[in-house]
């Protein structure tokens, strides 16, 4: 009976793990929905800013702002890497970190010094292992990044950029393309390359419809206070902040999706394993009964 009992023990362990992964999957699903809602709500602001930029662009064609100026020689760049605080999210962190490491290596060969800033415990331990010391680390951006926190960050980057401490700002994060597709990317946020804030339909009809309505609106003669050019100038840092915030929101949504998928897979695996263990157990039990029966039959035959 020893073998059968060992199998039962293993099956119990697998079932317990299944319960845990299933719960984690449900939690991740819930968090994903919340994160997506936040991202969709934030889209309203982004869309309005894009609309303003378009309206102002018609009135004034030349925008000049130090944040728009590309430096002829990039000597120092800053790379912000967005990873998660917790693991068990499949390839989520690995993908971002791979993209970030590639960028650091490329910068190294191009002779650009890279300052590293990392958000999320996973990234911090990875870079510690790689012996690349991050300048600053953050662990307070959970799955609900607050705009106020990110604005502080953005203001600091703007200051670093304007004072010439850095010539470029890159962010490595997981971009949310759709619920079934997230890509780890490295994007350059400073200098601001174009004012066009990307407005994507989030796959939800609520987000898509107003976006199309905006472009169909007929032009009206606006009055500007002050003039269009100086409002546009004021919009430059705002559009940078919105983009940075979007990076964080995207990362938060993608993290939850990655965890959901990883835990879904783990649950399915546990199911399969429990099934095959049950079969093994049944077989072991049956063979033991057969063996005992054979013993009894053999013994009675000997007595006769």
């Amino acid at each position, binding site marked *: 009976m020893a073998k059968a009992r060992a199998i039962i023990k293993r099956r119990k362990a697998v079932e317990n793990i299944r319960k845990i992964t299933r719960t984690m999957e449900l939690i991740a699903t819930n968090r994903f929905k919340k994160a997506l809602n936040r991202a969709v709500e934030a889209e309203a602001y982004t869309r309005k800013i894009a609309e*303003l930029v378009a309206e102002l662009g018609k009135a004034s064609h030349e925008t000049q702002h130090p944040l728009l100026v590309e430096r002829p020689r990039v000597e120092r760049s800053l790379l912000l890497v967005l990873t998660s605080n917790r693991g068990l999210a499949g390839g989520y962190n690995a993908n971002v970190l791979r993209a970030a490491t590639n960028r650091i290596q490329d910068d190294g060969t191009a002779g650009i010094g890279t300052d590293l800033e990392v958000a999320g415990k996973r990234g911090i331990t990875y870079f510690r292992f790689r012996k690349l010391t991050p300048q600053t680390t953050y662990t307070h951006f959970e799955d609900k990044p607050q705009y106020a926190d990110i604005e502080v960050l953005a203001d600091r980057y703007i200051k670093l950029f304007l004072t010439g401490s850095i010539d470029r700002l890159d962010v490595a994060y997981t971009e949310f393309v759709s619920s079934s597709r997230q890509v780890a990317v490295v994007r350059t946020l400073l200098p601001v390359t174009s004012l066009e804030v990307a407005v994507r339909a989030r796959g939800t009809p609520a987000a898509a419809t107003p976006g199309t309505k905006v472009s169909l609106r007929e032009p009206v003669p606006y009055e500007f*206070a002050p003039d269009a050019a100086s409002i546009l100038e004021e919009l430059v840092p705002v559009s940078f902040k919105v983009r940075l915030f979007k990076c964080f929101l995207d990362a938060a949504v993608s993290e939850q999706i990655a965890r959901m998928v990883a835990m879904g897979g783990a649950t399915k695996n546990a199911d399969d394993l429990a099934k095959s263990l049950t079969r093994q157990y049944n077989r072991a039990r049956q063979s033991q009964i057969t063996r005992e029966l054979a013993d009894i039959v053999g013994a009675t035959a000997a007595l006769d």
Partner: protein
Amino acid sequence: MAKAFEEEIVGDEKAAPKKGSKRIHLVVVTPEKAVLDALVDFVAVPLFDGEAGFLPGRSPLIGRLGYGELRTRSADQLERYFVDGGFVQVRDNAVTILTPRAIPAREIDVNAAMESQKALEASRPTSLFEAGERDKGMARARGMIRMASKR
């Protein structure tokens, strides 16, 4: 920039619009969410150089906001918010306000504002950039304190 104020001056706030007339669709959005989406009779916004009031039928306008009080009135309901800079767009009886923060008047933290004002007064900016930041911070703190004292 007195142009912005010619049509509706703040004094018009008392002149209640006739019943059944058009109302303003006011939307206040921050990067995190839409704070307010309501039909109102009157809106006063803090433009960068002073307050401007909008009544229904205002001609299209895009303006930069300063730090100060956003006031809305619908029927006899008066609501006050502190807006932290941003932009305003007016068209087709719709006023859209884009601001990093919109705080209801009673939730303003006066002590924090006082402290930040003191800290800024004590600071000595060493560059043009820092001086600009200091001015912005001062204007923000002053706006908050002014609003809180009106309670």
